[in-house]
């Protein structure tokens, strides 16, 4: 699908688990944690340290493809807009009066200056250029030109904001940041939307958004969320007690990846009885890796979303979201939410993102041309193989 704009109807109720979710839940076992795959793979470390490789990734993964740049919950109502400058170009995201999410190059058609600077969702139906006050509505139409008589023959229809391909599906807003190319949104609006609808992502409310600017290659962030081998080690003082030291289950959804782990005490027969996310979410987690570039992880009472925006081979902006079924009301609910947010934000930034920075420093030395990945880390290899396939390179 290559339409400029579209919406997916928000489900009023959360659908049953998808075939992929049912498949992976049935793969979860409570047996011997030592029963793990025995395998070794090698991964070239220059995929992290090479500036040339980064340019190729930016061209083929972050241009001409659907890039999830915002969660739907960040633009919760019609007639809202916000600016995203994290993907190497300034993007204006709007939700028009009918609720349709749209994206535009955030540039005035008059003198080509950046139009809006609102980094957080702002209500209002008009966007006024700060230079000469040319005014646009949230559909990108030029609706006001001061002293229009000095532009004889001006056709407002030829001076609309430049649209970017945009699809909202499954609680994410995907944009192709390149106005000159056509992206294929099939996965975003199809199977991935089914997955995220089934975990209720479009119905979530934004509890908090945090922004991290890290000195790390963006793929190192993904790597940290693609294997559980590190959990009892890197997270020994935080999350280790919540999960058994065992391999995660994994299924591929096109180039994207779904992993699942049971929480401590998970029973293998759970898989035969669970049919909805509500039944599963307290027992285990779903963790999605979307190319490119998002990580979505479920928890019993919230969902974390991370959107990675690479700036260079060694710098990444990570927008980190905590989404909840509804905003906490009572003091106890607020306290619980704050505790979870603080824990997850700290673990993510001080442990996972930190180690991504360490990996970036390590690969930059060139001392280790190939890293080794063991049996519990083979999903990391899947991720990189899928990326290589899109890039058209051999791993």
């Amino acid at each position, binding site marked *: 699908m290559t339409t400029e704009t579209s919406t997916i109807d928000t489900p009023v109720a959360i659908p049953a688990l998808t075939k992929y979710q049912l498949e992976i839940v049935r793969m979860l076992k409570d047996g011997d944690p030592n029963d793990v795959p025995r395998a070794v793979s090698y991964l070239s470390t220059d995929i992290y340290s090479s500036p040339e490789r980064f340019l190729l990734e930016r061209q083929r993964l972050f241009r001409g493809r659907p890039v999830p740049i915002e969660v739907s919950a960040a633009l919760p109502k019609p*007639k809202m807009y916000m600016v995203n400058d994290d993907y190497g170009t300034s993007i204006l995201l709007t939700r028009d009066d009918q609720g349709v999410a749209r994206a535009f190059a955030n540039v005035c058609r008059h003198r080509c200056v950046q139009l809006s600077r609102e980094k957080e969702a702002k*209500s*209002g139906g008009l966007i*006024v250029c700060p230079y000469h*006050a040319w005014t646009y509505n949230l559909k990108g139409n030029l609706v006001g030109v*001061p002293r229009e008589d000095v532009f004889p023959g001006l056709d407002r229809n030829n001076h609309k904001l430049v649209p970017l391909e945009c699809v909202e599906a499954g609680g994410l807003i995907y944009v192709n940041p390149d106005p000159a190319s056509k992206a294929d949104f099939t996965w975003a609006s199809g199977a991935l939307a089914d997955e995220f609808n089934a975990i209720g992502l479009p119905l979530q409310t934004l509890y908090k958004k945090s922004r991290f600017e890290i000195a790390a290659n963006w793929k190192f962030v993904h790597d940290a969320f693609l294997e559980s081998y590190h959990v009892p080690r890197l997270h020994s003082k935080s999350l280790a007690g919540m999960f058994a030291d065992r391999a995660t289950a994994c299924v591929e959804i096109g180039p994207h990846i779904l992993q699942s782990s049971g929480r401590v005490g998970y029973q293998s027969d759970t898989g035969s009885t669970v049919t909805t996310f509500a039944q599963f979410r307290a027992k285990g987690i779903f963790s999605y890796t979307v190319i490119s570039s998002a990580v979505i992880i479920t928890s019993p009472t919230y969902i974390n979303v991370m959107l990675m925006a690479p700036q260079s081979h060694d710098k990444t902006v990570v927008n980190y979201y905590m989404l909840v079924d509804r905003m906490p009301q009572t003091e106890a609910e607020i306290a619980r939410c704050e505790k979870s947010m603080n824990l997850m934000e700290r673990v993510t930034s001080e442990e996972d993102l930190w180690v991504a920075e360490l990996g970036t420093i390590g690969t930059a030395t060139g001392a280790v041309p190939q890293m080794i990945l063991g049996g519990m880390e083979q999903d990391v290899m899947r991720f990189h193989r899928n990326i290589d396939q899109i890039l058209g390179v051999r791993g």
Partner: protein
Amino acid sequence: MPRLNVVTRSGQKVTIEGQTGATLKEALMAGGIDEINALNSCGGCCSCGTCHVYIDAADLPRLPAVQGQEDDLLSIHDERKPNSRLSCQICVNEDLHNLTVTVAPEL
């Protein structure tokens, strides 16, 4: 000069003198109501919608009706009410003595 009763965004009530022949926006600015003049204002030519005000309902009949571009811009406004006007499109005259006007929320 006609007296104008102004309610600012913060709810403060101010009385100013309006210069006959000026626009209501110009009168508000001259009277110290700077918040009516947005950073990205079009300068008072009905193309940006930033000088949005509410006219006291009892005073509305004293004004000519909304039309054309003013109506188009107001129709896009989130905060439009039946008594919404763009202050750059209202000409101050003696007939507007004691008009009560409230500055609408920022665009």
